[in-house]
């Protein structure tokens, strides 16, 4: 076996050193009746690298890669061009094969990177402090809800109907066990989010209000009023963002009064990957909330010679110290994905991020105008960034399936996200990033025209 360096003669020498004669002497604690005598039957035995690669390549070819399609899917995962440099760096052995930085003296590479990452996320979100990442946007969203409960000591959670339904589902699932009360709903099919309706649902028992920005239909509106209303009732405003590129064009949630900003960082550096691993971002506007934050934090300090250095800090919040009193049971972050995000963001810089955002918006506007001109197709949004909802005069889910036959991935239907909701069945979410060419947009429009009948 190519991954196992011991030779049979090594094994013999080592058993002798240990003082036993057979490897099974080291497994004596496993009851003999449960111990397997040979390899588990019915399973393949070891294979050459070439054979495994061929097998996996065959499986991969059963998927339609986005690069081979006209591609417009979004709904919480966006396709952007990731510079080759990003992948080069995350494959450096010193990053790829380092563990959690428990020994900071020999982990400054990871730690400084995390400090830079935290700083980038905080600035992007308009917040004071961000943590060193979480599993993904949906779990970060739940962690924010749980944190709001700890901060406010209240149990009622008001979810916007226009929150990504997977995120809402995760919150509801978790809340079942913590006995939080969840108020949710469906998105209103209007040009702008129903902010007034949301504000009405906030009461004195509300721990937090959760809104998505841009929302699941791609709509955007100023959140200041919701923030004020929440704060007036002693609740926190949690803003969820699933497309960080948007924040290169539109106001940061922190600027509008959000208390906790969480999101999915996948757009920057990470790639689509069929949904994971992704990158949970988590930030708080007010530094006083830091000690209630979940997840790892990297902080600046000095070494014995006074040189600047970085360490994991405030770990008294964490499970390996606090056990059942921890702020969260999370132990792992998404270090490598955070690195990818940070490298990509460093390459972009403010200038690149703003240009990227502008190009996304330009193409999305172009696509929206062209789609809106098709008979039987109407763009719902008053405002949007790079994703918007069109309302079709036929079932959007079927349309998406039909177009996929011709290698056009037209977007995500609301029927996929909100099954069995008749009122939403004509809705199609179309995301347009810089990876879509104008030819792709034209191909989408003609295919939809032809298929509207």
């Amino acid at each position: 076996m190519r991954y196992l360096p011991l030779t049979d003669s090594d094994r013999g020498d080592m058993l002798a050193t240990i003082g036993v004669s057979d490897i099974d002497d080291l497994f004596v604690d496993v009851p003999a009746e449960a111990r397997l005598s040979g390899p588990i039957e019915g399973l393949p035995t070891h294979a050459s690298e070439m054979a495994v690669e061929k097998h996996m390549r065959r499986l991969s070819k059963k998927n339609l890669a986005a690069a081979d399609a006209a591609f417009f899917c979004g709904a919480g995962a966006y396709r952007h061009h990731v510079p080759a440099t990003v992948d080069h760096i995350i494959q450096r052995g010193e990053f790829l094969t380092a563990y959690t930085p428990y020994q900071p003296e020999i982990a400054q590479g990871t730690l400084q990177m995390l400090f830079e990452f935290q700083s980038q996320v905080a600035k992007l979100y308009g917040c004071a402090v961000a943590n060193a990442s979480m599993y993904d946007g949906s779990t970060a969203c739940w962690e924010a809800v749980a944190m709001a409960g700890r901060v406010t000591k209240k149990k009622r959670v008001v979810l916007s109907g226009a929150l990504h339904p997977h995120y809402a589902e995760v919150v509801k699932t978790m809340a079942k066990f913590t006995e939080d009360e969840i108020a949710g709903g469906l998105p209103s099919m209007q040009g702008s989010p129903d902010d007034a309706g949301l504000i009405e649902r906030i009461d004195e028992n509300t721990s937090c209000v959760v809104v998505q920005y841009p929302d699941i239909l791609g709509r955007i509106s100023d959140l200041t009023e919701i923030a004020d209303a929440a704060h007036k009732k002693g609740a926190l405003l949690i803003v969820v963002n699933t497309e960080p590129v948007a924040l290169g064009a539109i106001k940061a949630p922190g600027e509008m009064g959000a208390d906790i900003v969480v999101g999915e960082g996948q757009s920057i550096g990470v790639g689509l990957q069929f949904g994971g691993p992704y990158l949970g971002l988590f930030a708080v506007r007010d530094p006083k909330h830091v000690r209630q934050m979940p997840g790892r934090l990297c902080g600046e300090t000095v070494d014995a010679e006074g040189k600047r250095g970085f360490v994991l800090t405030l770990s008294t919040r964490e499970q390996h110290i606090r056990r059942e009193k921890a702020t969260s049971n999370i132990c792992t972050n998404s270090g490598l994905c955070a690195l990818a995000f940070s490298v990509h963001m460093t390459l972009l810089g403010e200038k690149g991020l703003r240009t990227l955002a502008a190009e996304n918006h330009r193409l999305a506007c172009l696509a929206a105008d062209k789609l809106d001109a098709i008979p039987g197709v109407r763009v719902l949004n008053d405002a949007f960034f790079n994703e918007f909802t069109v309302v079709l005069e036929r079932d959007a889910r079927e349309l998406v399936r039909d177009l996929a036959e011709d290698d056009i991935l037209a977007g995500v239907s609301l029927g996929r996200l909100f099954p069995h909701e008749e009122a939403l069945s004509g809705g199609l979410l179309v995301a347009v990033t810089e990876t879509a060419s104008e030819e792709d947009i034209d191909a989408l429009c003609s295919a939809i025209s032809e298929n509207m009948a």
Partner: protein
Amino acid sequence: LEEPLIFEIGDSETTGVDFAFASRLDLAGVEQPKQPTAASEHRSRLGGLDRAEKIELPGLSEPETVRHYTRLSRQNYAIDLGLFPLGSCTMKHNPRLNEKVARLPGFADVHPLQPVSTVRGALEVINELAFWLIELTGMHGVAMSPKAGAHGELCGILCIRAALEARGDAREVVLVPESAHGTNPATAAFAGYRVEDIPANADGRVDLEALKARLGPDVAAVMITNPNTCGLFEPDMKAISDAVHEAGGFVYCDGANFNAIVGKVRPGDLGVDAMHINLHKTFSTPHGGGGPGSGPVVLSEALSPFAPLPYTARTDDGTVHLVEEEDAESFAQEHYGTTMQSFGRMTAFHGQMGMFTRALTYILSHGADGLKQVAEDAVLNANYVLRSCEDVLHAPFAKSGPCMHEALFGDKGFGGELTTLDLAKGMIDEGFHPMTMYFPLVVHGAMLIEPTETESKASLDQFIAALRHVSSRAMDGDEGLKSAPYYAPRRRLDETQAARKPVLAWEEPEAPSGTPTQSERGGR
């Protein structure tokens, strides 16, 4: 040379990404892409929410970026550089084939919500991996979506809670032995249970009698780490399971250390009801800098119906289906003739696909025979370290018999004021990453060493020599260790200051101390 922060070398006007659109790239004129439509032709639809303020994200050109991160990386220790003996947090060789496979466009460049007809291969990967995990553990089902080990633990406990609720059985207590991972009680508490400790016996194992004595109608589950955090296999596992089941509870097994027994024993045969598997530990997916992880949970027949959504299933015609909220009920009815009572959804989308491709690649490379060898070599290496050092370091459970994948030592006998921390920092100067320190809690000044199966004997011998050397210094009370490390990128770091006055994000220095003038810089 010290590497500055990106905020100190970059600025908001520099970028390492171009968005220029060449009029045409192909000189032969075969392809003449159109100039992009000017933005001005389309009105902005940002609803007046334009971000006006500076974001202050620094940018670097591409050469500067490569150099910054390359230099940073060299301040890290990594498995590619040497042995990484972190007990309970295995870091072993990451095969590069896995990385290559994960980057195939058919896996890396696929959206989670593409129509199912366009992602059959991805679903097959999930399904094949699920099949392997079930076979290797002897269990009935598996929940693939948990994002990491702790997330998997939560999934397992939530399945248990859902199963108990389904039968109207409101139990309130989860028993956790002392030797468990810290995540175990945190998880049980999160799921709304009261956590009670079960003491370890003198051998470092669960005290079976104490456990039995505590069992009763209020105990929902017992969470056992097996092999446990002392590096020992719990020989009474089956008896524990039987007792728990008899009392109407469930057995959760923390499978973080499954790498020690994969292919040697199947937890399902020992009566386990739920167990998460850390793919990065047992199946070598990369965990650079602390993640990502992936924590599928194998489940007994009793718990399988309560597993979270989504899941994949292969029907008799060989097709692999993606089952989500929409059709979970009907699918189970149609294909299994049972009802699903899923407790819900733990994450958006389908789990850590990128880790699934890597883990499956690793598993296929080893096969059933290779995986058994993995466990054997991991255990052999750990026992080799244990027996090669027990004469110079206190090994509290050395008499309890062989260890499994990790060797445990304590600080008994250290001279002067020296601590486990000092010994660990001394190992850095020997060129090695230190072991896990102060864990498990049952041993004073614990040092937990897990060499893994991907170390050669030569590498172990080097490590042992270094450990023996530093141990002697610790026993002799060599005060020099107090200030170790001397030869690392940083000397010992002040963690207290970091926690007392947290600096968690970069801030522009308030009064910039004046940029150097031309003459100061150039010297002329």
